[in-house]
């Protein structure tokens, strides 16, 4: 198997914790992994992305070529669209629908929504509301991970185990909160994954 993932968002939103959990799961599954991150100046409220590649065979490039990503996972709708040229024609976009507006010329939310809905395969999810209802506002990124999990090529139970291990030192309550968030995202994706002919 090989899954090439682009994670995107705005500096500080927490895309790297999603990457850490997927990475830990991939290692448990005995897969190869490469993950290119963004550090430094652009983290200050700018757009950030990470290239995460998992595969049963050795991986060459740290960067995903254009047109080759299986999934874009984004904590912000405009940031999901920024990386469209990297997506395979039959790839999935899993994105939060909450705009992060910190620039004066941010596009109109309705137009963004239209552009997302025009994508052949996508899950658009209001992670903030779902996180609040199911667990805690802080778990928005784990809700998104849950929504992406059917498309990763990894067993969902193993992803849950990785969440347990990674949050273990923060106590059982935090672990359970994140498991709830994960399951809420997963359930949503099962009911709301949209496909149409490319």
């Amino acid at each position, binding site marked *: 198997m090989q899954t090439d993932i682009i994670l995107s968002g705005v500096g500080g939103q927490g895309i790297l914790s999603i990457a850490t959990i997927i990475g830990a799961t991939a290692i448990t599954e005995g897969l190869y992994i490469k993950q290119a991150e963004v*550090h430094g100046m652009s983290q200050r409220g*700018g757009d950030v992305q990470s290239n995460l590649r998992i595969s049963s065979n050795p991986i*060459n490039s740290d960067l995903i*070529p254009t*047109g080759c990503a299986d999934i874009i996972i984004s904590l912000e709708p405009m940031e999901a*669209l920024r990386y469209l040229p990297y997506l395979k*024609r039959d790839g999935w976009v899993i994105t939060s629908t909450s705009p992060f507006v910190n620039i004066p010329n941010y596009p109109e939310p309705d137009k963004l929504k239209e552009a997302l809905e025009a994508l052949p395969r996508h899950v658009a999810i209001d992670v903030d509301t779902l996180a609040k209802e199911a667990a805690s506002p802080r778990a928005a990124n784990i809700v998104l991970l849950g929504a992406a999990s059917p498309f990763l090529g990894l067993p969902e139970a193993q992803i849950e185990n990785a969440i347990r291990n990674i949050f273990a030192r923060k106590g059982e309550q935090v672990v359970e909160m994140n498991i709830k968030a994960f399951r809420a995202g997963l359930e949503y994706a099962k009911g709301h994954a949209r496909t149409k002919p490319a």
Partner: protein
Amino acid sequence: MNDKRLLLGDEAIALGAINAGLSGVYAYPGTPSTEITEFIQNDPLAKARSIHSKWSTNEKTAMEEALGMSYMGKRSLVCMKHVGMNVAADAFVNSAMTGTNGGLIVVAADDPSMHSSQNEQDSRFYGKFAMIPILEPSSQQEAYDMMSYGFDYSERHRTPVLMRMVTRMAHSRAVVVAEEPREQNPMSFPANPNDWVLMPAVARRRNQELIKLNEQFLSDAETSPFNKLTSGKDRSMGIIACGIAYNYLMELYPDGCPYSVIKLSQYPIPTGLVKELASASDRILVLEDGQPFVEEAVRGILPTPVPVIGRLSGDLPRTGELTPDNIRPALNLAPIETFDPCPLVVPRPPALCQGCGHRDMYAALNEVLAEYEHPRVFSDIGCYTLGFLPPYRAIHSVVDMGASITMAKGASDAGQHPSVAVIGDSTFTHSGMTGLLDAVNENSNITVVISDNLTTGMTGGQDSAGTGRFESICKGLGVAEEHVRVVVPLPKNMEEMKDIIRQEINHNGVSVIIPRRECIQTARRHAKKQ
């Protein structure tokens, strides 16, 4: 013990160095090199072994401190971003002349595409300039393995070794297999003490020895475990793939590359391998991140029997990092079908954090400077560089570490008033203090703002060398006590800040204003810990 860990390229270097018997790392923070030193600062074995890992004031002091540790027979590592090499250059180039005792590796992390830098300089030129071997890893595992190899090599030939890598290697994770740690070296004086006194008579002898040693470096590069010539069936092209570029090439040929390929990860350029490649190829394509270092060398000035293509010929982009995408055309591969870019997407540039003290400093400075006809603000390297962007648009120059104060002085010498310098606390101790002394010695009419957030902010909040001592440093350099002014940059103190700035701009001489409030990122972290 074969320990498998998921590590950044930076962390692989750090672990490789620790396990190779490192005794000290010396560095100034700089993207993308910072995580090497941070890893060593937090590693249990490094702590147990008391490996030196405190930040140095700048790259030159770091390089010299590491050379001192090498003098004493111990293994030392120096880490910096590429432009740090300019600061360390005097010590770096002359360390090749003294040679080493304990193993010495200098890591320069280049930033092609300038993700977090002001230029795209290629550190391999520094290695060639200093006439020392260069290692350039193509994978995180190789970065790990090259530490033990590099220290052994450094000690065997009494030479510093340069490791050059790029952002994508520094900041990408992969699984690394680590070995059992080696013991640290015992302390020992150099066997050849006179080599370390570079008076002309010694330097002339050492220069000859170093030139002679370069024959050895070349023959070692021909047979290096990190260099490899693989033969291909298709002789229409031969490829030299340097460092990380080798991965991009292999990515495009999952079933094997049809051309002959040199994987190049140890320099000097192995001329024998290149000749062999040329004899089996109708032309040579050079894939290298950064500047056309290998391409220029292989091509020379006069026409060669085998055409050489790459960045200089226009077959690859002249600037910016290589990617699996931008090397496709040079390999005559068809473009991949993709989605079109979405026209709604607009740039989202980085910005100063909400609540950051630099914001209040710029707000006050802008209001006061609006009262003058042609104010000029010379700024420096740090988060506050973002004061160039809206909403502040407050600064007129950013050049290199420390240039704010000295450029403000030069502008004042030319007749500019107000001539204001804006510099951060860590940048001030890195390279601003000597410039301030110049200004004091001539009583230049400048106003220096040291925007003190108690940390090295842009690289993630490392210790800052002068914290708690800026007033005494400035007074010690000769700034008059009544013109060293401290203020807390908060919206509620706006009037006080403006008064102080106005008074000091109107003072005919050197003034220092220190707006001081902790970086909100480190403050948040400190609050969490408690």
